[in-house]
């Protein structure tokens, strides 16, 4: 479907971008009224304090709605578990709310929900968390429950068994969805990691002692940050922190010393080396056959050596390539009008949506594009995705395209901070990398300062040499795929026989 009509549309679209505020299009009879003077975005102040036991407390006051979010960040996640125990961090965190020395799982749920609130616990790759969101006049009661689940979990066998069977059922359900399955496979195939939610074999192998050990080794005040956002004062937050977490002691032995950022958090495995990259080629193609799948999921994936953090003379800071990379991603696949969505959805109607994202680790990162299309067009979409990734390294991004894509990022950022939960998550993100919270204030300026040259350089250095993964009804698209990628080795596995530990 690459025809002249689409090229014409693209040119028109670029013109409109250039002149959006005072648009003069050929047939237009009216132009939109221009904006008035902008109002200032307020970035809230973060007040920090460290309790005697080493627990850091961070508070952001916001009074417009009588709600508070409390988020406890633990700076250990799935990166601290082995592939054979994939899912251990997430199970450990999830089990916190399933029973303490004085409360059963049902009592925990009843008591927090009686307050109208909720409590959630889980783990990501870099961190684990427990969050509470509740009306501000019920915060004290909610914190009683929150501290109990963090300090006194019992990890009863019957709760482990139930969570395990729930996780396995959930996995079986998700593995029937092409999009989930593609992400699941990519963790091992492209990034040499494992799925945070676990694999069937790993979940089955996790024992009570594994959970107790993971908890003992990772949950300690010195590795935690307690974040309050919303309708609460700094003084009250510190009082509650001391009252409910002041007696929390670090276990006698932890796997890592406190506050030592040189070996913390644990270094993640690193993807393909830059030197191995071939700028003109992808590395390989993997097809996962899911017969009768309603669509095919198509991804391009690349493990990067660029991490979120940079160590400069022992000082932790944001990696200088971080901001160029997120602006680049905004151009390529962040938001509705990004290039991938333009090419795949808007111009060709091949998908409901297409995008891309980085998953950051301390010293490396994972880059992935995502889209779903009818099985018939899977190979065509794979080509389109590759074209767009390559284009970033080959051609500069014009100012008329770049500036709006920066505003997409800063606009999203401002809106994320509007809710107490979004604000707490943004802070937790920084703390999980040991980055200073001043990054919140400099974010907009850092994004604005990215140049087209930086983006192109980043793309050249990092994006080539990745993998394509397609999950769908293989019989429908295999012939087309072979035709479009005649010199590539295409590996095929059946979804039903999938074993992540055997993917290389």
């Amino acid at each position, binding site marked *: 479907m690459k025809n002249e009509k689409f090229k014409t549309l693209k040119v028109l679209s670029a013109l409109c971008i250039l002149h959006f505020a005072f648009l003069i299009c050929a047939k237009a009879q009216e132009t939109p009224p221009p904006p008035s003077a902008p*109002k200032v975005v307020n970035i809230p102040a973060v007040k920090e304090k460290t309790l005697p036991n080493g627990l850091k407390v961070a508070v952001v006051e916001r009074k417009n709605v009588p709600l508070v979010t409390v988020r406890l960040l633990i700076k250990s996640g799935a990166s601290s578990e082995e592939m054979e125990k994939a899912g251990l961090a997430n199970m450990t965190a999830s089990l916190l709310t399933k029973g303490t020395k004085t409360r059963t799982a049902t009592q925990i749920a009843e008591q927090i929900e009686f307050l109208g609130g909720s409590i959630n616990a889980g783990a990501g790759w870099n961190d684990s968390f427990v969050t509470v969101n509740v009306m501000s006049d019920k915060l004290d009661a909610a914190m009683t429950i929150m501290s109990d689940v963090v300090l006194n979990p019992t990890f009863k066998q019957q709760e482990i068994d139930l969570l395990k069977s729930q996780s396995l059922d959930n996995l079986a359900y998700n593995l029937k969805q092409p999009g989930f399955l593609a992400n699941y496979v990519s963790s091992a195939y492209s990034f040499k990691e494992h799925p945070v939610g676990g694999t069937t074999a790993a979940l089955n192998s996790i024992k009570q002692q594994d959970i107790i050990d993971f908890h003992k080794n990772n949950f300690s005040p010195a590795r935690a940050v307690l974040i309050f956002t919303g309708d609460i004062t700094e003084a009250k937050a510190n009082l509650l922190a001391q009252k409910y977490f002041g007696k929390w002691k670090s276990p006698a032995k932890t796997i890592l010393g406190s506050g030592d950022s040189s070996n913390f958090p644990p270094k993640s495995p690193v993807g393909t080396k830059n030197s191995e990259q071939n700028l003109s080629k992808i590395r390989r193609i993997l097809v996962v056959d899911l017969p009768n799948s309603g669509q095919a999921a198509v991804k391009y994936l690349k493990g990067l050596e660029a991490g979120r953090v940079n160590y400069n003379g022992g000082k932790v800071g944001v990696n200088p390539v971080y901001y160029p990379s997120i602006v680049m991603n905004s151009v390529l696949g962040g938001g509705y009008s990004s290039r991938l969505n333009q090419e795949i959805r808007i111009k060709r109607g091949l998908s409901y949506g297409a995008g891309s994202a980085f998953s950051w680790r301390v010293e490396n990162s994972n880059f992935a594009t995502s889209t779903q299309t009818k099985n018939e067009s899977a190979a065509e979409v794979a080509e389109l995705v590759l074209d767009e990734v390559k284009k970033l390294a080959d051609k500069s991004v014009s100012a008329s395209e770049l500036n709006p894509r920066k505003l997409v990022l800063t606009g999203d950022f*401002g809106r994320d901070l509007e809710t107490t939960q979004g604000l707490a998550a943004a802070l937790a993100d920084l703390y999980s990398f040991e980055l200073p919270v001043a990054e919140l204030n400099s974010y907009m300026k850092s994004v604005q300062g990215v140049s087209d040259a930086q983006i192109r350089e980043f793309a050249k250095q990092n994006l080539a040499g990745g993998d394509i993964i397609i999950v769908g009804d293989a019989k429908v698209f295999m012939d087309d795929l072979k035709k479009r990628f005649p010199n590539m080795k295409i590996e095929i596995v059946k979804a039903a026989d999938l074993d992540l530990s055997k993917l290389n």
Partner: protein
Amino acid sequence: MRKFPAFLSMLVFAFVFSQSVFGQAKITPLNIKQRALPNGLKVVSLQDASSPTVSVHVWYNVGGKNDPQGRSGFAHLFEHMMFKSTKNMKSEMMDRLTEDVGGYNNASTWDDFTNYYEVIPSNYLETLLWAESDRMANLNVDDANFKSERDVVKEEYRQSVLAQPYGRFFEYISSLSYQTHPYKRGVIGNLDELNAATPQDANDFYKLFYRPDNAYLIVAGNFEQAQLDAWTDKYFGRLARPSGAIPRVTTVEPDRAQEKRQLTTAPNVPFPAVAITYLAPNSKSADIPALKIAETILSNGESSRLYQALVYKQQIAQEAVFSADVRVDKGLLYFYAIASEGKKPEELEKSLLAELKKIQTSPVAANELAKAKNQLITRTLQERETNDGKALAIERAVAYQGDPNAVNTDIQKLQAVTVADVQRVMKKYFTDKNRVVIYYRQEGK
């Protein structure tokens, strides 16, 4: 919905967006201002200077139930066309005016209405009022755009229905629960009827439903009242009020005469599922608040009755839900559960009905009622953290009560619900003959 992998008619989302809310704790009423223009456009505004943004919503009284005959899914397909060109705007210019300046836009089609909305830095308010008025009156539907966008909607259908193990299940809940009402067709439609749609259909549909006297403009956020009123007059006041009548759905879904049971199948279904549906009263019924409280008691959170019984104690389901899916005409009250490994749909049905019987025959505990009210207040407060959330709440008041003030009065009605009210409504609507039971499992098994 235009951008996200969900169109909001999907029953699974009904709970999240349920129209109710409230409790004992005080919620500050939203101080809304209302106006009506001579051309019939109604305007609701709500000032809030806590962020430098403003949310603009245009709500149209047209939804999936208004799809033309043989064109299921059309109202939603048409929603996508509203982002294409107008007399004064190129295709996708709404994105230039929102996304490109740090805002965003979207739209969603429901059974009963369609909304278009954007959140923008507040200094762009006039620009967006101009743009919304332009697409209310000056849309162009061209062939190429229509075909391309129809392909996008077909992919949306594949993604949300065909590529999800339980996508077809939720479509069956609508299609098998209604006998005559157009709600039975669902909002997303089907591939054949989407393929049959033409640009002419779009032009006809636009003329019938997209007019100032069939719309509400809702603005929430950082603006000056006098300036908003002046801009509204300037850009919307000049639109003509068409003379023809707006077609309305008059079909009344008949009461059910006897229990109906149906077995359905699909590919890639890992575990069987069961739905049990009952016809609900319409959204203005005085029984709705008590049904919303029952929904919360049965199904909100891990302490809820269905989670505790089917998921936690019996361990026969990985998910067990009750939803009061309230609509302008008779909606649906439905239970559904997805089995755990090795469990049978018969067990799910039996347990769901046992929980129903329990709430019908014994009064709910006073602390369960208080808990439900607290949960609903918290949810209301969460929604009110953003301008967009407040505008959405006003929209639901308009859609389901026909009155923006319901955004404040609905809360009082929920607050007044008693233990006896809950028991009464659970007996009234959940009768054997008002029941449809749907089994769903892997095909060929």
